[in-house]
């Protein structure tokens, strides 16, 4: 297997955009190709497009060739779309990585796009409610907010986690997102602001939840040995982990402990030949405030049940135990499902290159992980990136 590098990429501004699915694709494609020298659309041999539900959000299926056409790409090796709901973009990176690592393609693009704002938002919520097993869980109105609300309720009961600790995650991530021009949310929030925001599903308020977001992004992958042809500052994929246990609510390993995430972390550290201490930046999937708290625990930065204390003590800020979501997270940047993991990867690249504002720059960072969960947190996916080839 060949080592693989990401040599550049680009993205749209994210948020409630006055733009169509096709507009978003074109904006991100232009930004991506303008960021990578010596690669034009005709060089792209593999294109993988992460998109969770374009059939429902944009009433468009078969989006991989649509994206290829709008980007001027005519792939000769691999073309496909990946769907893994909230991790659809990470699935795209993984497949593009596999294409290059295996030798199947020398230049691959991992792209992600989601248009989520619709004239009738109940229609968008319908799409979000067929993510869990629709006939047995979705039918009960169980979409992400009520699921994570119950997760939070049990975590609060079993471990003493508080609503204030959860709100502090939103305060942190929306602090960093004010320094990210791509982010959906550009205003700081306080704990009180979180408490005053409308209740979505108790104990979750609106600011405990990531947004409904339009956005698109793409990155270019090549073999590590030729990376310097395209950029002075590539980043390398050095490992990954992914684990899934069960799907319907009854078959989850646990509501309050994300066992599949622990397994994915172990595999990431093993495959990347690193320890937890080697990680300088973690872009974690904070779809809800409780998610990030449980991720501190599953990664092992905080003891089980101590995730709330971890944020209370400021440990996940830059300069603390581990810089978590200096991009602004999903809570600050929004969550355009198929694009999210690509946006995370792109921000790590910019962190390594020193292209992000100083106040959210993790100086001297060498190794980073990006994480996505999907469904009822039954699936967890992680990629590990390094500034230097290992």
């Amino acid at each position, binding site marked *: 297997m060949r080592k693989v590098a990401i040599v550049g990429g680009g993205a749209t501004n994210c948020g409630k955009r006055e733009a169509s699915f096709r507009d978003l694709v074109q904006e991100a494609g232009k930004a991506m190709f303008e960021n990578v020298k010596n690669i034009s659309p005709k060089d792209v041999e593999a294109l993988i497009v992460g998109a969770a539900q374009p059939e429902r959000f944009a009433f468009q299926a078969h989006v991989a060739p649509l994206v290829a056409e709008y980007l001027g790409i005519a792939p000769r090796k691999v073309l496909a779309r990946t769907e893994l709901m909230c991790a659809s973009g990470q699935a795209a990176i993984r497949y593009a990585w596999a294409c290059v690592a295996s030798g199947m393609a020398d230049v691959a693009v991992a792209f992600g796009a989601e248009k989520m704002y619709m004239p009738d938002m109940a229609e968008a919520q319908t799409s979000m*409610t067929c993510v869990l097993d629709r006939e*047995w869980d979705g039918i009960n109105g*169980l979409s992400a907010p009520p699921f994570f609300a119950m997760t939070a309720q049990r975590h609060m009961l079993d471990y003493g986690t508080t609503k204030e600790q959860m709100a502090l995650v939103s305060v942190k991530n929306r602090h960093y997102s004010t320094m990210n021009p791509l982010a959906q949310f550009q205003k700081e929030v306080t704990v009180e602001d979180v408490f005053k925001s409308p209740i979505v599903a108790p104990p979750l308020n609106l600011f405990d939840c990531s947004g409904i977001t339009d956005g698109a992004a793409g990155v270019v992958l090549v073999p590590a040995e030729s990376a310097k042809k395209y950029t002075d500052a590539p980043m390398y994929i050095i490992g990954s982990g992914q684990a899934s246990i069960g799907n319907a609510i009854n078959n989850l390993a646990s509501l309050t402990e994300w066992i599949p995430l622990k397994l994915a972390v172990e595999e990431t550290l093993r495959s990347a030949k690193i320890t937890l201490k080697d990680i300088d930046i973690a872009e974690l999937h904070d779809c809800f405030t409780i998610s990030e708290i449980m991720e501190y625990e599953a990664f092992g930065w905080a003891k089980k049940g101590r995730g709330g204390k971890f944020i209370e003590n400021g440990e996940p800020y830059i300069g603390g135990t581990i810089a978590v979501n200096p991009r602004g997270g999903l809570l600050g940047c929004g969550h355009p499902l198929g694009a999210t993991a690509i946006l995370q990867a792109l921000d790590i690249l910019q962190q390594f290159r020193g292209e992000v504002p100083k106040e959210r720059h993790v100086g001297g960072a060498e190794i980073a992980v990006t994480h996505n969960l999907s469904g009822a947190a039954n699936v967890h996916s992680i990629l590990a990136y390094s500034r230097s080839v290992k």
Partner: protein
Amino acid sequence: MKKVRFEKVKRTETIKLPYMLDFYPLEDEKNTRISQFFNNLKQGRLTTTRCKKCGKVLWPPRIVCPTCFSDELEWIDLGTEGELYAFTEMRLGAPLGFVEDLPFCIGIVRIGGLSISARIDNAKYEDLKIGQKVQLKIVGLDDGRVFYRFDAVKENH
């Protein structure tokens, strides 16, 4: 240049909520091989399948056991009384077909050794407690399809 003509056309008539978007499964024997589950519900019985070969209780109900791939499964009763393991109330962001129900409670109910999600009726969020007893209830649509929910059991003090 000829004058360009403008003509109004009607948007398609209001569509009633399509079957595949109303969240209820297609339940009869023409559409599923677990129609027995829904027939049992109509008789007030919440049931699931158990593998006759390896004894595993399977939820959701199946036609093949994923442990030993036997297709000899039998229906077992889960009982009619459960206990709340977790609950919340949907207040914002309901999908089509649920908007008029807002707000409504959802819970994870422990029943017959399983933990299943369900609508919890007969209570507001503030009235519910973890560990509270809930009673099986069957709801029916005009077209004959059925599903289960639970009613919160009010405690007598």
